[in-house]
């Protein structure tokens, strides 16, 4: 469905996307993962035909986006990051306009609009003015917009940004539903998001593709960076006990009143996190330190990137880090 080879985009001296190549096959839900400013939106905008590339070739559903832009655009539904909509229109009017712009046949238009509203869950707001909708509903109207006319490929730029946790859960559920019928490429900077809805992940950092693999493969990279322990009083004793285990490279204590939070960074090598966590808790209890809570810190995306970008030698596309070794 998507074939990107050696894609480069420059803005003046800034290289936003640097020699990126990847493929997305039919029926996949691919997560495009990267921190803010990594080049995700730029890449998606090029795919959607909104921006031109500096170098490289991009094919969408068999059509080159530069040479055969109109055909390429016909075969995809795109939801831009900011979900731009016309506030003065009603939902159903807007979607009818989008259906016509996307050249859905006149006879099929009403049905296309209804089914997009149904799928995206905005049917109950069909006659509301878009300007009066909540952020969550606007996001869904954006999704309905991408879905209208049932294009084989959907490109969604941060579909859950700015939503509250309930709305995020709903949108993720929606994405899994949509993924049954459409090929989806979605971007996000949240690891949990790809884990919950994607079949495959592309990781981009500083404009370069740094990893590519199944969700499980990426998950494996998600090593907890530290052990967080909260104790009451006896901070020095707790610190000494933990240091004696020799599994932490650094321990930082933060005391507020009589409660101390210890952030213990795991040693890089030779430490099994689950086992060491058990040992640490046992040691604290044996030393009769009052422990309020103890848990491995969830790794953030930045840590995964740190992990990924540490590899000094360049790797071939077929053997990127993240593949099972």
């Amino acid at each position, binding site marked *: 469905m998507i074939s990107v080879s050696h894609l480069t985009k420059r803005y003046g001296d800034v290289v936003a996307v640097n020699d990126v190549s990847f493929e997305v096959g039919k029926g996949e839900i691919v997560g495009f993962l990267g921190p803010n400013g990594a080049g995700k939106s730029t890449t998606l*905008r090029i795919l959607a035909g*909104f*921006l031109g590339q500096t170098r490289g070739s991009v094919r969408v559903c068999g059509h080159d986006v530069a040479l055969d832009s109109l055909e390429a655009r016909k075969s995809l539904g795109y939801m831009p990051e900011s979900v*731009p*909509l016309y506030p003065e229109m009603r939902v159903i009017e807007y979607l009818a*306009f989008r259906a016509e712009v*996307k050249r859905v046949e006149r006879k099929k238009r009403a049905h296309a609009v209804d089914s997009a509203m149904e799928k995206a869950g905005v049917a109950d707001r069909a006659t509301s003015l878009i300007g009066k909708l909540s952020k969550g509903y606007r996001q869904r109207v954006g999704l309905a917009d991408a879905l209208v006319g049932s294009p084989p490929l959907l490109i969604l730029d941060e579909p859950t940004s700015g939503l509250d946790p309930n709305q995020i859960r709903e949108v993720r559920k929606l994405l899994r539903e949509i993924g049954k019928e459409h090929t989806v490429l979605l971007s996000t900077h949240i690891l949990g998001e790809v884990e919950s809805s994607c079949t495959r992940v592309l990781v981009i950092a500083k404009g370069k593709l740094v990893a590519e693999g199944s969700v499980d493969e990426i998950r494996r990279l998600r090593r907890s960076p530290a052990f967080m322990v909260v104790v009451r009083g006896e901070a020095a004793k707790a610190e000494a006990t933990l240091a004696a285990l020799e599994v932490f490279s650094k321990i930082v204590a933060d005391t507020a009143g009589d409660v101390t939070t210890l952030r213990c960074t795991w040693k890089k090598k030779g430490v099994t996190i689950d086992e060491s966590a058990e040992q640490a808790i046992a040691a604290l209890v044996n030393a009769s330190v009052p422990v309020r809570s103890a848990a491995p810190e969830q790794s953030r995306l930045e840590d995964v990137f740190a992990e990924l970008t540490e590899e000094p030698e360049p790797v071939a596309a077929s053997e990127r880090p993240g593949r099972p070794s």
Partner: protein
Amino acid sequence: MSGFWPVLKRELFAFWVTPLAWVLISVFLIVQGLHFSVLVKNFSEMGAIESDQTPIQAFFGNTVLLYLVLFLLVPPMTMRLFAEERRSGTIESLLTAPVSAASVVLAKYAAALLTYGAMWAPTVLYVVILQRSGFVDWHVVGASYLGIGLVGAGYLSLGLFMSALTKSQFLALILTALVLLVLFILGIGEFVTRDGSTLHDVCAYISVWAQMNDFASGVVDSRRLFLDGTLIVLPLFLTVRVVESWRAE
């Protein structure tokens, strides 16, 4: 022409569903109505022999009021066409749909043009009123409306182009008003430059004042048509190029 009709319909919708178009039309019709009633009153008091003009001529030509309303109306009509879409980001949805840049530009232009036509349409009633009490040369009326249509079409085209140059509606408004003002002042140059000089000829050629005087007397000069055509087509062409260039940005 992929995407022309839906975009045209949406633009008309956007014009007419917001108060802007109604406010502009109200202002326009109030000014033009006053203008007309004052003219008719003057003419009826003067008697036929004293005047070498007809009310139609006076309404469309030889009056600064006409340009005043154009200055007031055209910039706010065109300012939002592209600037608003770029500011709010809707241009991204629009241009990622299978539409060509040319059809988007032409659709927006056509919407502005139709709205402009709708503003002038009620003024035909004035002519009908005149005809009830006297003789009206419909050729002159036709030439006058052609003139006003062409001048407006050129102005709207320039306004559309200005709207594509900036993300700020306000800046688009100011730029359009400035360009129209410069064009008008250059035309006025006809009266301040020496007869026979090149500058004088140029000024006379682009003078919208002189053009409306001609058209309002029933004189349709092909040189004027060519100038108007250029003022319509050139900005439209440039706008299409600007829209296409956004992809390369």
